[in-house]
């Protein structure tokens, strides 16, 4: 074939492109599309509570009712210890990051498939979709945090300097949600099993995360195993940063941070590796 030589040259061009310059291009594009990003978050937030009776109140109802149920069953019936903190605030302070995380990985995991028409008809950096799905939950998180503040006043919980850790933990939590979300989202493009696996994974994850119970009730031998779950250090950290006298377990937080960063980087790499084929197989 006459064009054989031409093909080789072009293949080389394609190979060369997959270096650092492409990463630069990738971030530049992401920046260019930052407004789309804003509009997608805005759309999801806006649509979520349209045609609902309680509207935005749902952001409070869900964690609050869960907290009440947990208190009734685990505190009053099962006598769950809570490291000397009133159980309602003990569980609520952990429920907020947990609910954010579970919602974020579920919406992000479904996001590409839900936005199929966009993927097959328009070009924009694909990363915008799971990222906006992940950030969308922050609005609910913010609203529900107001209740947490009220509870802290009610239970007369004072603040300590450890509150400074809180925003750092939030950033780590977002990174973790996004990392997990990106992996599920790109898997979902090819394998629709993800739809069934996601709720199940979320449910199991809750049991291995100290939301209902403090990690102090776990036998010492198993703790390192538990701390492999990046949510362990993050959620205990959230609690400790708000409620004084808990003492932040720095090694657990550090471990979580490392696992979180690994998951985030792996998620981004996997997403970038697969995003080229999204439009073809979705």
């Amino acid at each position, binding site marked *: 074939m006459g064009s054989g030589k031409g093909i080789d040259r072009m293949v080389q061009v394609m190979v060369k492109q997959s270096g650092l310059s492409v990463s630069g291009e990738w971030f530049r594009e992401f920046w260019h599309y930052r407004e789309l990003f804003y509009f997608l978050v805005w759309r999801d937030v806006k*649509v979520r509570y349209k*045609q609902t009776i309680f509207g935005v109140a749902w952001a409070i109802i869900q964690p609050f009712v869960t907290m009440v149920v947990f208190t009734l069953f685990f505190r009053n019936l099962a006598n769950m210890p809570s490291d000397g903190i009133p159980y309602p605030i003990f569980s609520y302070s952990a429920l907020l990051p947990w609910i954010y995380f579970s919602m974020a990985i579920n919406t992000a995991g479904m996001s590409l498939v839900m936005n199929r028409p966009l993927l097959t008809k*328009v070009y924009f950096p694909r990363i915008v979709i799971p990222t906006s799905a992940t950030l969308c939950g922050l609005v609910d998180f913010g609203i529900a945090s107001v209740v947490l503040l009220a509870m802290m006043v009610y239970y007369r919980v004072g603040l300590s300097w450890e509150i400074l850790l809180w925003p750092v933990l939030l950033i780590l939590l977002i990174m973790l949600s996004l990392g997990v979300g990106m992996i599920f989202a790109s898997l979902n493009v*090819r*394998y629709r*099993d993800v739809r069934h696996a996601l709720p199940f994974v979320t449910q199991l994850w809750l049991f291995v995360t100290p939301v209902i119970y403090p990690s102090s009730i776990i036998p010492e031998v198993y703790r390192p195993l538990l701390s492999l779950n990046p949510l362990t250090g993050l959620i205990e950290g959230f609690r400790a940063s708000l409620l004084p006298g808990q003492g932040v377990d720095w090694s657990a937080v550090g471990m979580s941070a490392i696992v979180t960063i690994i998951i985030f980087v792996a998620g981004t790499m996997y997403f970038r590796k697969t995003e080229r084929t999204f*439009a073809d197989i979705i």
Partner: protein
Amino acid sequence: MAYSIQVQNLSKQYCIGSSQMETTIREALTSLIRHPLRRFCEKKNHIWAIKDVSFNVEPGEVIGVIGRNGAGKSTLLKLLSKITFPTYGAVKVAGRAASMLEVGTGFHSELSGRENIYLNGSILGMKKREIDAKIDKIIAFAGVEKFIDMPIKRYSSGMELRLGFAVAAHLDADVLFVDEVLAVGDTEFQKKCLNAMGDMRGGGRTVLFVSHNMAAVENLCRRAIWIDSGQIVRDGPAKKVIEEYLSTFKATRGAGMDFETITHRRGTGEIRFSGIEFLDENHQSKNIVCSGERLTIRLHYRVEKKVSNPHFGVEIFTDMGTLVASLNTWSSGVEIPYLNPGKGYIDLNIEALNLMTSQYHLSLWTSSVGPTKYDQLDYCAVLEVEPSDFYGSGRGMERKFGLFLFPCHWKISGMGHEASPILSQERVPVQPVISE
């Protein structure tokens, strides 16, 4: 760089068939166990949707991309607009590019028209500030001022479409890729869209425009690219390329047609069309078909492998690519239990071919009940419809009178002319002018 679009050896390979397309992990695992060594799609399942396409476009050019269905036009557009990635080859686009493969991409039915303008605009790559500045013009263009703050689920489909096009028409891109968006919408709005695109040409914008509407391509574009089987057949002045493209259809005209020589075919091949015949009521071959006449279209086929419940269809298109009718056994409720290997034919009897005199193109398909097409031949035969005295008035009918003839008659009994059925007799006789 002088060129607005540079395309070099652009190629895209798709894998058809079931391998590689497992959609659940279970299927992936079973196929891995069955064929542990096979990593990628088998060779025979590869098809090149686009193969070694190269061309350059000057800034400000408006180019029409034409070709039959499945020729690779849409894939080309998707590659150019970066929606899908090439297997190899490269595309360079200078400046800001926007693609319009669909009108109103990303519209959300719960959001208002105004909110959707922002959403759709940002999806197409507009900045918020830009949309702020243009929103009044966009709303006016779409003509939906009264409904702009209503959720678009209350809009009619026409309104939604107009809104979508209005946003796209105000895109301020250097390069625009447009797919068959003019195929929808009412005529008046189509005209408006064509004008808007005409303005694009004036604005020095580069436009690549895929269409089946030859009239639109000829009007809008000075240059056209004709694509077939993923490759460029002709690239040149629009008028010449269109003429050449249309002439390939004319080659297949006649009372009958042999399809055995057609080599590259789509479909899975259990059934292959081997020929087509036009017959009159006595099953005699028919060379001339007149408006209103009875016509039998006989489709000859060859069955390679036993199939159950096949369906057959004939599609009739105008020479501008408008689908006039899709006649098929499925819609008519005809069930064919099975077909054994061998040759055979199926007849489509048309009681009265009420088509205005013109040239029509036929496409044939045969498929299973599902989406699997056994065979598909696009624009494979030409049906030449000759004028006839359809209404028995002795007056000729031409294409400019439309596409269809309906069996009908006028009654003038309400006009006070009970006795005479023919209006012309009531006219005051004109004095003959005597010349010389």
